[in-house]
């Protein structure tokens, strides 16, 4: 969004790398949904994906360091299409390169998590990674018309 100028940022939310800061996500998304007529099922998908991406940046990208930058950006390149990007200054890491874990196995007593990328790919129309000069950017697109979360 900022890198290639194809989508003008219309709003952004600046967080610090604390899990408690994530409580700001939901009201911010609700405000965007109200102002830009984001349908309920898309709002659900956005919140699901952003919760996953932001929590991974905080817990894994910054490995617990609490005063680092996490910026969530919103753009609407065309009617009915919503783009969200999460930009950080953590060590370079492309989560899309990591092998996607299989769905939870009822016999696997140890694993609870690891479903993030799977969820993002199932609920967003597009999921892309790009490195930035200072860290990473994960960009996700959500279509109101062709939402994977459509009822």
């Amino acid at each position, binding site marked *: 969004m900022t890198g290639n100028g194809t989508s003008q940022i219309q709003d952004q939310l600046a967080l610090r790398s604390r899990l408690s800061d*994530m409580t700001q996500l939901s009201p911010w998304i609700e405000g965007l949904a109200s102002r830009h007529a984001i349908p309920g099922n898309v709002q659900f998908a956005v919140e699901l994906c952003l919760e996953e991406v932001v*929590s991974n940046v905080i817990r894994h990208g910054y490995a617990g360091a609490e005063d680092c930058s996490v910026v969530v950006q919103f753009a609407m390149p065309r009617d009915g299409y919503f783009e969200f990007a999460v930009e950080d200054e953590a060590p370079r890491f492309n989560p899309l390169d990591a092998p996607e874990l299989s769905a939870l196995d009822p016999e696997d007593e140890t694993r609870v998590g690891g479903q993030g990328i799977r969820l993002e790919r199932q609920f967003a129309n597009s999921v892309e990674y790009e490195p930035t000069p200072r860290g990473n950017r994960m960009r996700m697109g959500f279509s109101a018309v062709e939402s994977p*979360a459509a009822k």
Partner: protein
Amino acid sequence: MPIATEEMTGGITRVILDGKLDIEGAAAIDLKMNVIAGSRKAVLVDLQKVSFLGSMGLRALVAPARAIKGRGGKMVLFGPNELVEKVLKTSGTDTLIPVHHELQSALDALQLP
């Protein structure tokens, strides 16, 4: 997130969740779910009023479910809406914690030998 419990016949505990199972919701129910997981053997988690389920919320369900199962008990999920159910299915959580949309089938599934 409000969490309420109701004791039903047959030793079944109904846990009623209301609202969003996001990071805040997961934190709000974590302690009580752990207490329930350590003391109950037949648990029905009523999701009818849950409007959102994220990965933090999934953890808040999976961990107690495994604990209950480890003690020889059972846990089921009841009445998720379509999007919540899609999260459960996409993550495979429904293979660990069965999902029911009919109350009687959920209760039947919790009958312990």
